């Protein structure tokens, strides 16, 4: 199932790259994600996500996204101070319809380190903070619908909704994975608020919204 998705995404890319080579005057856009940094700042983190988009004459859009994310959250478990810190890359292809809608499918790779810190009290000798680390490398696929809103001749605001499917399950040997850079939250608040005797398991399906600011170079 997973291999089939990767195969279809790669073949789509190759066919559209071929189409691009046969088409003159592609438009090139530089983009920057502007909503995720605001959301991440609530979790004492940041997101830097630039992108490059090629739009062909037939409205096909090829996009490459690079990203760096740091997300923090206290209380993923009752006493665990969690941090996800990593990089990701996404390559996608879509088609713009009526200069507004753009369904897009992409393949992503995320490499990140999760750190879980717990403070143990030491009334006699002093406190100790234990640090657990998990390193992750995950492939995921993403379906997006972008909405191109023209602000000026060169500037677009592009809000989007996305659904992400992790092709590999995170390694949760030490503690549950809360966030996958590039994909989003994989543990949800309603599970974290409940007081359970078991460890929560991350979901392989997630989603969200974001807003890109695009600048047309040519």
């Amino acid at each position, binding site marked *: 199932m997973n291999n089939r998705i990767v195969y279809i995404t790669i073949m789509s890319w190759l066919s559209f790259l071929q189409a691009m080579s046969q088409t003159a005057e592609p438009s090139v856009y530089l983009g920057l994600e502007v909503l995720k940094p605001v959301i991440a700042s609530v979790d004492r983190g940041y997101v830097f996500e630039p992108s490059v988009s090629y739009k062909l004459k037939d409205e096909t859009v090829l996009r490459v996204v690079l990203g760096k994310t740091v997300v923090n959250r206290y209380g993923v478990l*009752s006493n665990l101070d969690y941090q996800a810190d990593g990089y990701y890359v996404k390559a996608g292809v879509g088609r713009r319809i009526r200069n507004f809608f753009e369904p897009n499918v992409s393949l992503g790779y995320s490499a990140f380190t999760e750190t879980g810190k717990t403070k143990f009290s030491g009334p006699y000798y002093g406190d100790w903070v234990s640090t657990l680390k998990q390193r992750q490398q995950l492939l995921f696929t993403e379906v997006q619908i972008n909405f191109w809103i023209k602000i000026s001749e060169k500037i677009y605001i592009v809000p989007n909704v996305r659904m992400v499917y992790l092709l590999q399950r995170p390694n949760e040997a030490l503690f549950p994975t809360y966030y996958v850079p590039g994909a989003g939250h994989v543990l949800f608040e309603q599970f*974290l608020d409940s*007081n*359970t005797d078991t460890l929560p398991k991350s979901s392989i399906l997630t989603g969200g919204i974001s807003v890109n600011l695009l600048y047309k170079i040519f």
Partner: protein
Amino acid sequence: LYSSHVFEFIKKVCMKKIRILLSVYAVISLMMACSGCYEDDCNGTDTEPSVVIYVERPAAYTYAYGVKDRVEAIPMSSYGVSVPLSLRQNKTTICFMTPGGRIDKLSVTYTRQPVAESLKCGVRLYVLDIRVIEPTTFNRVSIVDNQIYINNE
């Protein structure tokens, strides 16, 4: 006579309210008792664990203490002493003070293993594989089930 009238008045007027208050108190007490049981479900520890040291002749010592920046005496009991282990390092040195001012020393090493247990309990700590570091001033020291037995005769 006056006080008995007051008592009767309180009894008639307030008895219903007192019953309600007592019921609420009973329910809250039960809830607190249950929440106490709930907390105990967690395994591992969230603070310094203690190691029990059984001493053959505990009266030979006035007190014990774990080595740190200042001496904080831990009184001896009829079986020996229960001493906290340091979490800041994987080693603790315990001193035993005799009435004559002599100090016997015992150092132990161990593994600190944090384990994510559950959403409610979070990460708990296990101290495993306690071992005695030689040399020690005691003739014979043995460890059984993370409990230390000292022969000081």
